[in-house]
């Protein structure tokens, strides 16, 4: 009885569950609705808009590698918070980088 937690905390723990896989995104977790939430999620913002990065170049491996998952997949917008125009450029750059062996098509298991 004494160890029963605050009633809202188990539900908050469940909410955290499905979002945990948004790992490498710079925006981190976000997009939560408000209203009695334990965790306030900051609205994700496009990294390229905020930091005013104009050029998304295929040679910039360090930048691009932040937007590919462990296995080499492109991380979707909904996890990283990148805006549509920038995601389009980003995905094109990642694909070019893959072609010249700067990024993997599929990482080794």
């Amino acid at each position, binding site marked *: 009885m004494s160890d029963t937690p605050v009633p809202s905390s188990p539900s908050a723990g469940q909410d955290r569950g499905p979002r945990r896989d948004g790992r490498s995104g710079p925006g981190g977790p976000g997009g939560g609705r408000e209203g009695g939430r334990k965790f306030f999620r900051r609205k994700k913002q496009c990294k390229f808009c905020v930091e005013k990065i104009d050029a998304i170049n295929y*040679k910039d491996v360090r930048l691009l590698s932040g937007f590919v998952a462990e296995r080499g997949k492109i991380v979707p917008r909904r996890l990283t918070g990148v805006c549509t125009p920038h995601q389009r450029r980003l995905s094109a750059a990642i694909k070019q980088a893959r072609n010249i062996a700067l990024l993997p*098509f599929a990482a080794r298991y």
Partner: protein
Amino acid sequence: MQRRYEVMFIVRPDLQEEELDKLSSTLEGHATNAGATVKSIERMGKRRLAYTVRKFADGFYILLTVEADGKAIHEIERRLRVSEPVIKFISVRIDEEEKRLDKIKQIRATKVKRSASEPAPAEPAPAPAATA
């Protein structure tokens, strides 16, 4: 129609330094013969490849910036394809991207000017009083 291209290619890692020099100079010659003007040729050094290419785990990256038309690029690509030490290449057109970046830079510059000129009108106002 002369356009700006970037040709990046990977050379096999077991090549000697002088062979690398020779390769890049011959390629430069071929490019100029094909009607392209070589802007720069840059060694990006030895790098680990993200996946094995022709059983090589790493390679020398070389970046070639040229001003050329489609035919010349085609010729350069053909040369790269037949040259044995080159294991991978990619050619990317960069003039449009440069144009876009210049435009953004210009827009940003005008915005900065406008914000800088906002306090500026305050300055000329006292100036006539001083002269008068």
